[in-house]
């Protein structure tokens, strides 16, 4: 079981290394959106500090949906997904490995870069820490929930837009608690509650979504 997990993970990371340009698309989108806001809203430090949490989180949300339809699309098109579905192990293991690989390639770079971008909004040090941590816990949830949409829209025309429409409403709780934690930290309130709820969302989606994604893939492959 672990063997299959590692095999799929290794394979997907190797493929991502061969196609590095794909990795940079969502990261540059994230940087670009975040950069544009101070230019559009104006340079008042107090105002920027107040909207920073929302902007960084919404940008992270949008750039993670941008890459979603790549999780399964290429494997579906060349038939490797069929082979994976016929592997003699539970489909959810394969799904979990693929989502983890996708997060490592598109989610983690964004998390690592976020403190740097937060500086631009003049966030205090403590709030930057909270932002980093909330994104670290929250972006995997976005990938897991997003993969459900990606699995269901596999092989459809215009699937990319459809995924966003399907998935974005489901990610609202993550946005609320993620951005809420950072805002609370900026205004000097307790952040533990928000982060615990985010952790709960991660644990819940880790346990439940692989089965849902697996079922979605079965429907799409058929």
């Amino acid at each position, binding site marked *: 079981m672990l*063997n*299959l997990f590692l*095999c*799929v993970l290794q*394979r997907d990371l*190797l*493929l991502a290394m*061969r*196609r590095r340009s794909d990795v940079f698309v969502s990261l540059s989108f994230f940087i670009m959106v975040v950069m544009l806001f101070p230019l559009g809203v104006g340079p008042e430090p107090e105002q920027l500090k107040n909207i920073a949490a929302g902007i960084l989180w919404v940008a992270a949300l949008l750039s993670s949906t941008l890459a979603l339809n790549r999780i399964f699309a290429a494997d579906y*098109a*060349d*038939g*490797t997904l*069929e*082979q*994976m*579905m*016929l*592997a*003699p*192990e*539970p489909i959810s293991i394969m799904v979990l490995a693929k989502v983890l690989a996708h997060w490592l390639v598109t989610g983690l770079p964004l998390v690592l870069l976020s403190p740097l971008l937060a500086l631009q909004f003049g966030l205090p040090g403590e709030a930057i820490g909270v932002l980093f941590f909330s994104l670290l816990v929250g972006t995997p949830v976005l990938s897991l929930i997003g993969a459900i949409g990606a699995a269901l829209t596999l092989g459809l025309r215009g699937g990319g837009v459809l995924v966003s429409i399907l998935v974005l409403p489901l990610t609202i709780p993550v946005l609320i608690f993620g951005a809420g934690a950072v805002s609370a930290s900026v205004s000097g309130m307790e952040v533990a509650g928000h982060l615990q709820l985010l952790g709960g969302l991660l644990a819940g989606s880790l346990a439940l979504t692989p089965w849902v994604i697996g079922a979605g893939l079965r429907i799409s*492959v*058929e």
Partner: protein
Amino acid sequence: MQTPATAVLQGRALACTRGERTLFDGLDLDLQGGEALRIGGDNGAGKTTLLRILCGLSTPNAGTVSWGGVAIGTMREDFCRQLTYIGHLSGIKDDLSACENLLLSLRLTGKTIERKAAYSALAQMGLDEQADLPTRVLSQGQKKRVALTRLLFSDPTPLWILDEPFAALDQAAQQQLTAIMNRHLDDNGMLIYSTHQEITLSAKNTITLMLREPC
């Protein structure tokens, strides 16, 4: 390799419709060790659909497929361990080399082989010079050969399901594939394949199933 006596693939009353069209209805089939089942029929007659139903990727509208008397839907993982399926799409990654493709596709089924073994298998299939090239530069037929190289390692899976294995292959490769299939059948393996070509296999019993446009 010994196939247990119970390991028999059985299809009962299989039916499949696509849209308004009935592809097949009330289809029964049985397959035992050493037997080959050839599925023929016109384009669009439902060959691929039937093969996908038999390996459990699609579900039939009616009827059951069972392996050793147990419906395959209830024993997916055990059934997949018995099965090698090479579909219409080759399952070859364009960005990986032929050797990497072979190693990874085998690892997916739980088999780990040495790199050296992979190279010699690819050489056997006439791909010794292409083993390290990314498969996107290979021709259609060469890609197919990369996919088929898996068959050299696929014992002890008793059941092979191959969708149009001879398509895009040249004369020499076709003969080689026939030899591989014969070896599998001599080892008491089961083979289901679809093709438009006439091929003589050494099977104890070759069943031909022609899918026809239903009236």
